[in-house]
């Protein structure tokens, strides 16, 4: 599904990704762990197509299509979803309006009919319930006045509604208490555990990986993947620290 080869990317004058390769197939859950500054968020932004993140070498394809020349919204329409580490506030725009416009924009790109208001509300209710989110929250402006945990949960509701093929979740677990972590974890499983879908979890901690069991764990250090293993690698990292593993 996602194939990254020898990816180099710079932000300003600094090279952050220094030859990263990674392949994710449908049905798989991958986790990327690594110390601060290793390039985890940069990887997410580069795949999402954010301005200012320049790819200088290498390739990234999604279902065989080169995505690096595409605009962010085109990548989204292909089914690529980014869960933000710091979800952004959009004052005056309700979550429902935001998501309905986003979804229908994606559907339009894919040549599908827009979803009617009624069908959309039904979908939104269903996904909000999955994440134990009050519908009233969805009527409020996007992330405005939300606590850290609410913002993260909101990201997962968005993911549920947009129904992507590949979700790249950047530290979705940070800022969540134990109960919320469990809810978010089971939400991810319910939405994304599917033979046609895949997940890339970016995280510092092993805790989320107990909820969403990865098939592969990668260690990212100095802009590339230095080690790959199974779930046991996450446990080992937590016990021994990055220094020992990534050195």
């Amino acid at each position, binding site marked *: 599904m996602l194939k990254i080869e020898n990816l180099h990317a710079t932000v300003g004058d600094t090279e952050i990704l220094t030859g990263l390769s990674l392949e994710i197939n449908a049905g798989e859950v991958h986790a990327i762990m690594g110390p601060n500054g290793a390039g985890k968020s940069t990887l997410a*932004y580069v795949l*999402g*197509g*954010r*301005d*200012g993140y320049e790819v200088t070498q290498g390739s990234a394809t999604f279902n065989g299509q080169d995505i690096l020349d595409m*605009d*962010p*919204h085109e*990548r*989204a*329409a292909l089914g690529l*979803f*980014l869960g*933000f580490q*710091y*979800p*952004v*506030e*959009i*004052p*005056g*725009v309700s979550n429902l*309006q*935001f*998501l309905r*416009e*986003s*979804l229908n*924009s*994606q559907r339009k*790109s894919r040549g599908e009919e827009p979803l009617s208001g009624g069908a959309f509300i039904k979908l939104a209710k269903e996904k909000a319930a999955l994440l134990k989110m009050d519908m009233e929250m969805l009527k409020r*402006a996007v992330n405005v006045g939300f606590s850290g945990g609410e913002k993260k949960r909101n990201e997962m509701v*968005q993911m549920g509604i*947009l129904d992507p093929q590949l979700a790249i979740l950047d530290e979705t677990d940070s800022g969540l208490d134990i109960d919320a972590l469990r809810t978010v974890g089971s939400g991810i499983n319910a939405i994304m555990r599917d033979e046609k879908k895949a997940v890339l979890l970016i995280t510092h901690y092993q805790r989320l990986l107990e909820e969403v069991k990865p098939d592969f764990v990668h260690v990212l250090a100095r802009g590339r993947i230095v080690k790959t293993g199974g779930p046991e690698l996450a446990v080992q990292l937590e016990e021994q620290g990055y220094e020992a593993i990534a050195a």
Partner: protein
Amino acid sequence: MTNDVKAKERAAEEQAERTEMNAEAQAAADKASAYEHGWSSDIEQEFAEKGLNEDTVRFISAKKEEPEWMLEWRLKAFRIWQDMESPDWAKLDIPMIDYQDAYYYAEPKKKPELDSLDDVDPEILRVYEKLGIPIAEQEVLAGVKGARKVAVDAVFDSVSVATTFREELEAAGVIFRSISEAIKEYPNLVRKYLGKVVPVKDNYFAALNCAVFSDGTFVYIPEGVRCPMELSTYFRINAENTGQFERTLIVAEKSSYVSYLEGCTAPMRDENQLHAAVVELIAMEDAEIKYSTVQNWYPGDENGKGGIYNFVTKRGLCAGARSKISWTQVETGSAITWKYPSCVLNGENSVGEFYSVALTNNYQQADTGTKMIHNGKGSRSTIISKGISAGKSDNTYRGLVRVGPNAENVRNFTQCDSLLLGDTCGAHTVPYIEVKNPTAQIEHEATTSKISDDQMFYAQQRGLDEEEAVSLIVNGFAKEVLKELPMEFAVEAQKLLAISLEGSVG
């Protein structure tokens, strides 16, 4: 040398040219009347000579068969105007306007006659489409031959529907007329209130309007009547082209209510560069007037060439206790906007509101805001102003909150937010606060922000393209104001904001 003498001299000098211009005007008139036939219009086509003097004023008044008092009123205004000077305190760069180089009555329409929408500039059609304007209405707006009657039928679902509306209004006792008709049909009412809120000598442009106003609207809501419909919603097409010096007078008697809509989201072609309207509102005890405007006059091209100058005086008088006047405006058009819809709050516990979105792009300039004059005890006002600047434009909020010495317990809340797109535009907030009574509570909040890269990327990652993302964020920014608009107007206004910002990102 007085202005009068100057004007006469100039007139003499231009005599030779004038003969030529008259011929030109006549030719235009012939052309205009040629396609008048198709429109079953009964308006006589005649033209005042180019230029402005007492004779012009007399001519206008005579053509409109106005009573003597009206003529005297216009002449007095004209004399006052001659002794005034164009204001220059606003943060606007206004080119010299040659008032002698214009027609003041039945200016020849320069709209070319088009056979069908195929002949219309595709760019304009694209905008119509984006706004979701029905084909029939598009034809009228674009000036397609014979379109008016058809469109009126289509929009009103036959003329009889329009008649039904009129009958419904009349049954309720509401008077809704052109100001010219009202001057003849209801002279006492008009005379009683005209110029009472905006005095003739109020300002340069108001005085000019008083002298030469072309037409406009008169609304009278009798005591205890709630106007059964949003006025002008169904009269949008009829109301087009009321001219460059529009005059509106709305009187709401005790315990009455009216909501009035002015303007049009569709880009209107107009060859009159200067628009100087005057709007007066009067609300008696317990009466409420809600006045909504969407203004989309031609703003000039992306290099700042052409475009309308919109110098408007709008003021409401809350005369009675607990009366309320609410202004809502969405301003996206015009090259230069000079406009401060205001409330004079004389009534005890009266309420004034001002909700404004002003969007400027390219080389547009806007200096707009409000005045809340608190004279009544316990009067309250709310000001919500949202300025959006893009391109190389300049957008100024200018507002006055004044509390008189006898006005106890006045409250005002003002919020001015500016949103910048790009780094070549300007946003300015100029609040004036004059409080002469210590019991007043005045709050002023102001913010300036830019659309952040974070917001843009977030919205785009969810599937919106760049323009959709900007539109969403801008509409969110303006939401507090847009929600004050009547529903159908609000939807159009949202689209209008998006269209006005096209090409301003990236």
